[in-house]
């Protein structure tokens, strides 16, 4: 597990709070899939990316989505940990809450 724990905690806190609004009552962990487990639409993930970029600065999110969109249909999904790893690898050293 190489995810930055602060980014992981930050993303989980955001998703936890949102999940309360859509009455998702399962536990959200780094292994939770956004679409398959939480029931999000892919547009939800696109919009979540907007919020992530507001928080961490500009990221190559469109390319990331393109990579996901190019997978076989049944694999077009990511886990919380994968999103966190993407942010950790790509954001330009901007600290949590400083973007």
């Amino acid at each position, binding site marked *: 597990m190489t995810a930055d724990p*602060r980014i992981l*905690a930050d993303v989980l806190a955001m998703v936890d709070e*949102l999940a309360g609004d859509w009455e998702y009552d399962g536990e959200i962990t780094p292994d939770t899939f956004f679409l398959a487990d939480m029931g999000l639409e*892919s547009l939800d993930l696109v919009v979540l990316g907007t919020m992530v970029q507001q928080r961490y600065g500009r990221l190559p999110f469109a390319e990331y989505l393109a990579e996901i*969109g190019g997978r076989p249909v049944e694999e077009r999904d990511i886990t919380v940990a994968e999103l966190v790893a993407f942010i950790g690898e790509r954001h330009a050293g901007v600290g949590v809450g400083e973007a």
Partner: protein
Amino acid sequence: MAPTLLLGIDGATFTVLDPYMQRGVMPFLRDLTARGVRAPLRTIMPPLTPPAWTSLMTGKRPGRHGVFDFFQKESADSEYYAFTTSQDVRSATIWSLASAHGRRVISLNFPMMFPPPAVDGAVVPGGWMPWRQLRLGCHPPGLFDRLKRLPSFDPRELALDMELEAKAIEGCPDDEYADWIRLHSRREERWFEILRHLMTADEPAELVAIMFDGVDKLQHLCWRFIDPACRPDRPSPWEQEMIDLCEGYFRRLDALLAAAVELAGEDATVVVASDHGFGPTRDLFHLNSWLEQQGYLAWNDAADGAGEQPRIGFAEMTRHVHELDWDRTVAYAATPTSQGINIVSDDRRDALRTELADALRQVRNPATGRPLVTDVLTRDEAFPGPYRDLAPDLFLALADGAAVSIVRSDALWQRRPHPNGNHDWQGVFLAAGPHIRAGVRLDELSIVDVAPLLLYSLDVPIPGDLDGRLPVAAIVPERLRTRPPVAAPAVWEPAPAASDVTYDPEEEATILNRLRALGYVE
């Protein structure tokens, strides 16, 4: 100061409103017309919700505000598209200008408002704002939780639910039409209840704006039940039920508009505007397949078709990236809504533009024998301004309301069995109030003229760099004499977003402890 009330009606057209006004279905709009000013409102190209509302909000055309479509190229040369957000609006807006001059703002259900701008007032964004994330779009902090306490508050019906939205995009079985129409009546009620709450529980706002978007959505799917010219001569019982339900929607919308004006008070200046017009559409032009036939585009036969997931999302945004053979493609359409063609080759860009434009003008509608493409414009012609390079290279205007499809198809052209509704150029403008002339019909106004009128009504100086002009013919001459419009220097400022959601250290520590317990964090 008496409020200025902007009532947005997405996709409203006099083609539909006039018969409803004449038949007493929309008595409030009829009376508002009689006591105010009416004009057709010419929209921008493309006649599409995100760029058109942005033009209304900025007083500028797309080349000068930077929004062209639901999705936006990452950069001028990029094939990657991102979700268009408020951060892509590269201009001051009526919201930021009003707020900067000390006017409180209420803005409900307008697109391009996520992330919400940091205005003095309240923002609940509309457009493609998924209901699951509506909390993130509400400004100021705490507003979402306040609204949750309203009995009528239901984010799933208030904001975008792709399961429901798919019906407008893909169509739906006959037995789902009635629920679809009723949903939009409820949705407008829910937005109105937020307006009522904010106008009665909060301190007064000077710029109050709400957008009702059910008109657009109903007209897409139900045009044949709404436009008298397209209704069946002898409707079946089911068709008559749909006609009646659509009429009921417009009747209820009229009542909500009346109630909003009553809340604003008799001294309010009221402006009703739509982002574009609407008309019937039967024809579908498969633009990428046409480009393939002409030798400009090649498909990647190894691609796993994104078409299996028709709902809007990243598959829609990235379809072209995977479905095209980039070694053999020099021109492609990335989205149907942009009505545009992107050219890949820098070396041959100018020559390809000319070639493509000439070829497109030769395309005929097989059903009518008339040209299918009425106009082809380069982005320099269509979108002058500093942001034109973010637009497609060529923009197409199609005849008879035809729509563009970008999916691979053996047929270049298709005709639907029933007319649907599609966007066109002429929307609506109505205004009334103490300083607005009564009973006046004006020639066509431009959508970019609305922002100067709103700013004038708010006593906010009008920046000199707007494309729109104050429609002085709509204003009582005495008012213009005593309060002449004040010009201001051109303003460019990025729309600052409101602070995002933050989590306190204690909350983060709790989550970290939970993760440690689960073994995710050492």
